[in-house]
């Protein structure tokens, strides 16, 4: 007689990844099958050994250093007046390749071979984009209204 239960099924049982019926069937089988019961126990044992082997607590000094570094990092720094391209990309929620496509439109300057942008100039540029988009929407709506009025005039 061959037991078809494989390690993979027992592994899934241990992981809680089986549905209620599968769990019940497999647990009932384990109660009747000494080999599977041994294997299931071995699985639990190896997991416990794994935990013991890798469970290394953070050394107190390392935790203290990390907390200090975090506190220093999250201190609210004054917003930099001069922005790098990375900072501009993060500000505008653009990927580097997207930013490259609009780079020529941005009010940038070069210093020591690096592209930089003044924050207030960038914000003005954003405001200009918003206003242009608004004007475009208004023009588009006006054009649509005129076209509809013209078509209705022709129809009548």
């Amino acid at each position: 007689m061959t037991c078809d239960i494989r390690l993979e099924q027992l592994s899934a049982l241990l992981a809680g990844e089986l549905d209620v019926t599968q769990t019940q069937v497999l647990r009932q089988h384990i109660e009747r099958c000494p080999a599977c019961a041994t294997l299931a126990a071995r699985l639990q044992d190896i997991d416990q050994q794994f935990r013991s082997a890798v469970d290394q607590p953070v050394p107190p000094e390392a935790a203290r250093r990390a907390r200090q570094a975090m506190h220093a990092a999250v201190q609210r720094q004054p917003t930099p007046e001069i922005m790098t391209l990375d900072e501009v990309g993060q500000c505008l929620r653009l990927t580097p390749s997207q930013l490259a496509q609009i780079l020529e439109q941005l009010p940038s300057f070069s210093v020591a071979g690096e592209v930089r942008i003044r924050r207030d100039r960038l914000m003005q540029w954003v405001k200009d984009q918003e206003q242009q988009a608004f004007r475009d929407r208004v023009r588009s709506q006006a054009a649509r209204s005129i076209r509809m009025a013209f078509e209705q005039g022709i129809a009548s």
Partner: protein
Amino acid sequence: MAVGEVVRTDAMTDDQLMLEFRDGDDGAFDALFGRYYQSVYRFARAMLADGAAGEEVLQESFLAVARSAESYQARGTFRAWLMRIVRNRCLNHRQAMKARIFGQERVEANQVAAQRPGPLLVLEQQEELDGVRKAIAYLPPPQREALLLHVMEQMPYVEVAAVMDIPVNTVKTLIHRARANLIEATGGKDTNHDM
């Protein structure tokens, strides 16, 4: 932090804490750090077999979290997102470690580097390893990662899949193989048996 504040942050979800931090509450970030720093260090140290590297990854990962607060999307997946950051930092460190070790002039490092799995053994051999630790060191990294996330961090398969960016079925296979390898390496019998 006042007692009332501790109680408040303990009751908040990870997403809520991130959003609070984004809105200027540095105490919320401290609460997130307190919640996850052990898991981050434990995973990084196990992945890199080096406490100092684990500490570096711990700092780098939370710095990355802090920098991403402005664009954080609250989807109830903070832990998976954090561990993905940690995993990526570990992969970067591993690449750098391999480059350093293969460049060293120490004879024993070169000898060990010629063995499998390679550079990690150089670090592992500095400790006295029992059978399980040696077996863990010999696990292929994806198997070790999957088992770490599932067994140590008690992540369900679907969350492990999100961290490792692999299908759930691949996670099942990795965990099953990792356990089979550990059982065989530590003296277990054939894992497919006849009655």
